[in-house]
């Protein structure tokens, strides 16, 4: 394992400290427990948005703290959900008196820890709602499983719910918007290489030069199946088609297309994938009305990408277009 770190047990602290120094105009970093909140604190009367989860997915979530998006982010250890004693004060920091929405990716650890934190905040008199993001079509959603994972679609939920909160929607309305985004967004990912969690020190799985993992999550776990390496167009097809079919995209749909890098893939390759994913969508009659290409929800240095499609409506488009000013997303 070669990484630009000093000590596996200090990497999250040092990285978040560096993040805070680089973006002091946008965020304040709190330590012990560690969380990131907007510089200047919560805006009175605005619904607060808090997200968090294991580290290693940067820029998610701290990179999305700022105007028009999150009010606070809680980074856990690498790939490990943060604890309630960090989520609770972040919730307090995000509260402007109009309640707080927790945006939680659907992993047992995240769900449980946010649940406990919500109870703690509730005991402090803060009204908390939660939306569970579960956009990953690679995983079967049933009562007999842990359900679909939350992956790159989280960016869309955070951006659009953030815009709704910023324009003054109340907690119920912001929650409803977040749920609408989640209901209309789907993703699927591929890994060309694994990643190495610093405290593990070895890659999370081994792939030969001729193999890839399809249907991966964002925690270095193996995917649904291992298949032979294929040209970008074929891989893009394998990612895009399940997403489109699960969403039932067709005819007159307007969509947002997000091609997300897993952290170690050159931008040039993401645009190759984007080009083909877009063609596939257009081939079904859909219009790609908005696009995002880059590293947004990563798995450390993993090579690979995910394709996310969000079905838009006028309101979602307006909220997507609304101003955002964070370290990782800005317009």
């Amino acid at each position, binding site marked *: 394992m070669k990484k630009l770190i000093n000590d596996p047990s200090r990497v999250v602290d040092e990285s978040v400290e560096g993040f805070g120094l680089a973006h002091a105009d946008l965020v304040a970093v709190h330590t012990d427990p560690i969380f990131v909140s907007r510089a200047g604190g919560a805006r009175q009367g605005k619904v607060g948005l808090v997200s968090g989860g294991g580290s290693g997915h940067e820029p998610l979530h701290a990179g999305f703290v700022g105007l028009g998006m999150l009010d606070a982010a809680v980074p856990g*250890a690498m790939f490990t*959900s943060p604890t309630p004693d960090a989520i609770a004060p972040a919730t307090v920091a995000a509260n402007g008196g109009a309640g707080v929405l927790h945006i939680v990716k659907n*992993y047992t650890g995240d769900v*449980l820890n946010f649940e*406990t934190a919500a109870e703690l905040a509730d005991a402090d008199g803060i009204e908390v709602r939660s939306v569970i993001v579960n956009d990953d079509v690679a995983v079967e959603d049933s009562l007999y499983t*842990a359900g679909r994972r939350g992956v790159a679609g989280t960016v869309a939920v955070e951006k659009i719910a953030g815009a709704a909160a910023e324009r003054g929607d109340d907690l119920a309305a912001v929650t409803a918007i977040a749920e609408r985004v989640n209901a209309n967004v789907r993703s699927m990912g591929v890994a060309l290489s694994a990643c190495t*969690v610093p405290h593990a020190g070895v890659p999370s799985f081994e792939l030969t030069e001729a193999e890839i993992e399809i249907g991966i999550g964002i925690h*270095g776990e193996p995917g649904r199946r291992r298949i032979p390496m294929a040209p970008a167009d074929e891989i893009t097809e394998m990612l895009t088609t399940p997403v489109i079919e699960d969403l039932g995209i067709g005819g007159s749909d307007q969509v947002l297309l997000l091609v997300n890098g897993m952290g170690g893939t050159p931008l040039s390759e993401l645009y190759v994938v984007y080009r083909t994913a877009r063609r596939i969508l257009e081939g079904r009659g859909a219009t790609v009305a908005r696009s995002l290409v880059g590293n947004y929800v990563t798995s450390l240095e993993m090579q690979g990408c995910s394709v996310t499609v969000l079905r838009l409506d006028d309101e979602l488009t307006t909220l997507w277009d609304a101003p955002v000013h964070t370290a990782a997303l800005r317009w």
Partner: protein
Amino acid sequence: MSGQQEVELVVRTIAQTAVDNEKYFGDLDAVVGDGDFGYSLARGFEKVLEGWDDLDRSAPGTFLKKVGIVISSRIGGTSGPIWGTAFLRAGATLGDAQEVTGEQVAAALRAAAEGIKARGNSDVGDKTLLDVLVPLADRLEQEVQAGSDARTTLEALSTTAREAAEATKDMIAKRGRASYTGERSRGSVDAGAMALAVIVEQVDQAWQREALR
């Protein structure tokens, strides 16, 4: 009958085992999970050991509840809430009794298992630590009913735990991150299940060592 001393021996052994096996438990979780289980458990139980002398030990049940609070607040991931709940429920079951009977200990273990089921929305057969914990609770009840002594009981529990942990190898994970790999989760033991087996074996040995002195 067991008292504060015995409970402390058990908890200290659990904590030390978690710290000592950080790498092993992490590697188990890495096979089809995300590899953080050993790290999470070690960091959490480290905190328990660090704050050891300050834990409220007015009664075994109170002590267990305090340990549960440290764990829930300091261990991230799935393990914090799940293990925290187990300690909290066990502690609540014991109440503020100074000395506890075998039946009470068995009830506490059962409560821990039920707590995890509720919290984790999971059950026996999902390939989690419940596949060791529930057989453990069953076996403890049997041994208590049979009137076995501590030594016999712990040996029986060790055997049960190890066998149950090995048996998770053939299961398909239905809960936790390992479940995302579906069929591919078959063929390796569950990390939480095996950790519990190792812990029970260590408790058995620690008990023997203490009894010898």
